[in-house]
């Protein structure tokens, strides 16, 4: 039984990695390579592997105005930090509660000993 469940877990993990790695492998096969010896001729491969001069960018869709992205970035940072601080605060509270309970229990027992 133990071996069967282990095999099942391994199969799930391997299957998940096959899917992810296949996608990554396909992305890695795309022409956008970080090759250092890339000659200038590779500029023809597309916008993806050279520094793109701003005027050559494709037309920006208006659904992503820069102000929304900038505010989104700053807002995200604040959100992440607040969530993290809250999470640590909550865990601290739980541990301090545990310490109080345990100390009280020990203090109770000590006079009896």
């Amino acid at each position, binding site marked *: 039984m133990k071996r069967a469940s282990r095999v099942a877990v391994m199969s799930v993990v391997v299957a998940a990695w096959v899917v992810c790695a296949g996608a990554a492998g396909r992305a890695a096969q795309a022409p956008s390579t970080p090759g250092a010896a890339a000659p200038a001729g590779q500029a023809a491969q597309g916008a993806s592997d050279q520094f793109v001069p701003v005027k050559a960018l494709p037309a920006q869709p208006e659904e992503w105005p820069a102000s929304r992205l900038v505010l989104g970035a700053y807002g*995200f940072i604040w959100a*992440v930090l607040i969530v993290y601080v809250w999470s640590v605060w909550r865990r601290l509270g739980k*541990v301090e509660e545990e310490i109080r309970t*345990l100390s009280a229990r020990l203090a109770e*027992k000590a006079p009896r000993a």
Partner: protein
Amino acid sequence: MKRLYLLGVAAAIVMFAVAPFWIMGAPDIDVPNATPDVLLSYKIFFYHVPSAMVMFVSAFVCGIASAMHLFRKKPGADRLAAAAGELVVVFGLIVLVTGPLWARKAWGVWWQWDARLTSTLLMWMIFLAYLLVRRFGGPGADRLSAAMAVFGMANVPFVYVSVNIWRTIHPTTQVVPSLSPGMRGPFWFCVLAFVLLFSLLLAMRARLERLRADVEHLYLLADEE
């Protein structure tokens, strides 16, 4: 000590409240034919780069503390490593999200599999795995994760230098030393704010670990009775 901590928190709040105004007042970068959209999106730089710097520092703290735990068995080292490991993931998340939000305007794409972005993502995943091992590794997980952190720390110079070695779409490390005077002020102010924030978070998280160790100790005492 607690008073110093509260002072630090107050200072951090003030710095983060003031920073956006200074950032908005900073001069625009010098890119030819840049639209107002692209120039506005460059303001993300002032939070993106300090977050990345703090992520590297945190990775070093985690790696060095892990090495001390592995080789010298220093008692507080493992706790510090646990705290720093979490902060690598937090600040790494900030870097990996603010970057694409900026890139959407500056490069026209959300993501590129270039050397800098890929290696940063991998480093983030190494420390994510660090947290997973700490949580689910069972007995001996502290040493397992310490080994992960040592490898993760070895990654940091590679991530930093990757952008200089390979021709990538990501700006090189020459950008920061060659900032225009008007941008230097807000930038280093933000760096200071983030470093202060990092120190405060590290202290708080390390305290949580220390209290957890105290709880373990108390449980042992309670069992002995």
